[in-house]
């Protein structure tokens, strides 16, 4: 029993966001080095770098699963925005159910603008309908939706990885089976793609509306605040849903293997 415990938050981060079969071993190595002669800052630095190293390593090793996870996530979100959100919109806004819906507009002549409408529909809807900002609709509901999608991305990535393992020799399968979190990299990749796409589209939005020329008005500042809250809710939702599902898959896997 030792009294010197590694920094808890860094350990939690690496445990939940580190991916790949070596994650537990790396955690053990870092804990051992920390107890022997490591500092807290050294441990945090190593843990953070380990998350990135494992993430890129897993994506590179399982490109097919990464692509499947990305496609799954974005198809689900497009389905959600075009089919589910329009059904529940009237419960949040005082509008006619047969009237204007969530405002997704697919125009072949403007592919970037079309993607923008799919991606940020819950926030843009307020402007389209000239309605006051609804936190429940634009942040809380997308948070839940993205969390569910993040969980599904974890499941699909896990299934894809399991299917790919069937061709491996039994020894390799046992080695992989001892470890969870192979789907964590896919969830991280999907969350990263959401963040990146939102940032790119926000930049496009700004340039498209020539805001840089005219300067942001108070309304635009407010709209960007809402957009930022929505994007943060999206990314956190995906990570939370994906991580929780990863934990459930791990527990199930452990019970089955025991």
């Amino acid at each position, binding site marked *: *029993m*030792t009294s010197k415990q590694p920094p808890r938050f860094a350990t939690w981060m690496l445990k939940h966001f*580190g991916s790949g079969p*070596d994650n*537990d*071993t*790396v*955690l*053990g*190595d*870092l*804990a*051992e*080095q920390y*107890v*022997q002669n490591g500092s807290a800052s*050294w441990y945090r630095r*190593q843990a953070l*770098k*380990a998350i990135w*190293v*494992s993430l890129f*390593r897993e994506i590179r090793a399982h490109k097919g699963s990464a692509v499947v996870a990305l496609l799954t996530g974005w198809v689900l979100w497009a389905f959600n925005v075009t089919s589910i959100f329009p059904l529940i919109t009237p419960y949040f806004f005082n509008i006619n159910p047969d009237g204007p819906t969530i405002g997704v507009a697919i125009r072949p002549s403007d592919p970037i603008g079309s993607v923008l409408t799919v991606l940020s529909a819950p926030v843009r809807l307020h402007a389209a309908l000239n309605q006051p900002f609804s936190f429940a609709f634009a942040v809380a509901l997308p948070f839940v939706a993205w969390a569910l999608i993040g969980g599904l991305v974890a499941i699909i990535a896990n299934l894809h990885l399991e299917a790919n393992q069937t061709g491996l020799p039994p020894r390799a399968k046992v080695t992989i089976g001892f470890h969870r979190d192979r789907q964590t990299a896919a969830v991280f990749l999907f969350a990263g793609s959401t963040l990146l796409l939102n940032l790119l589209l926000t930049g496009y939005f700004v340039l498209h509306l020539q805001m840089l020329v005219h300067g942001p008005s108070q309304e635009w500042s407010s709209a960007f605040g809402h957009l930022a809250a929505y994007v943060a809710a999206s990314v956190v939702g995906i990570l939370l849903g994906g991580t929780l599902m990863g934990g459930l898959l791990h527990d199930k896997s452990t019970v089955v293997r025991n």
Partner: protein
Amino acid sequence: MLLLALQRLGEGAYGVTIARELEEQTGREVVVASVYATLDRLQERGLVVSRLGESTPERGGRAKRYFRITGAGIREVREARRSLMNLWKGLPDLNLKGEKA
């Protein structure tokens, strides 16, 4: 470099000892996770093999992963050394030139 570290460490080569050996030899901080990333690639090429070892309380009960260089790995090290020696041959004495400059 990793293969040489494994050769030097012998049976006691696992993440902590490998990282420490590399740090001592290079004088730079080594990211432990990067060591595993490289070792996994070497294992895929059949240059090293690994096995799970014992766990200790200071590791939080997590098992060590020991690595050992294979015959193919030793041949690879020899080949790399031979190539390096060949490259050095015919070069002027860089160290002396540097001192004169």
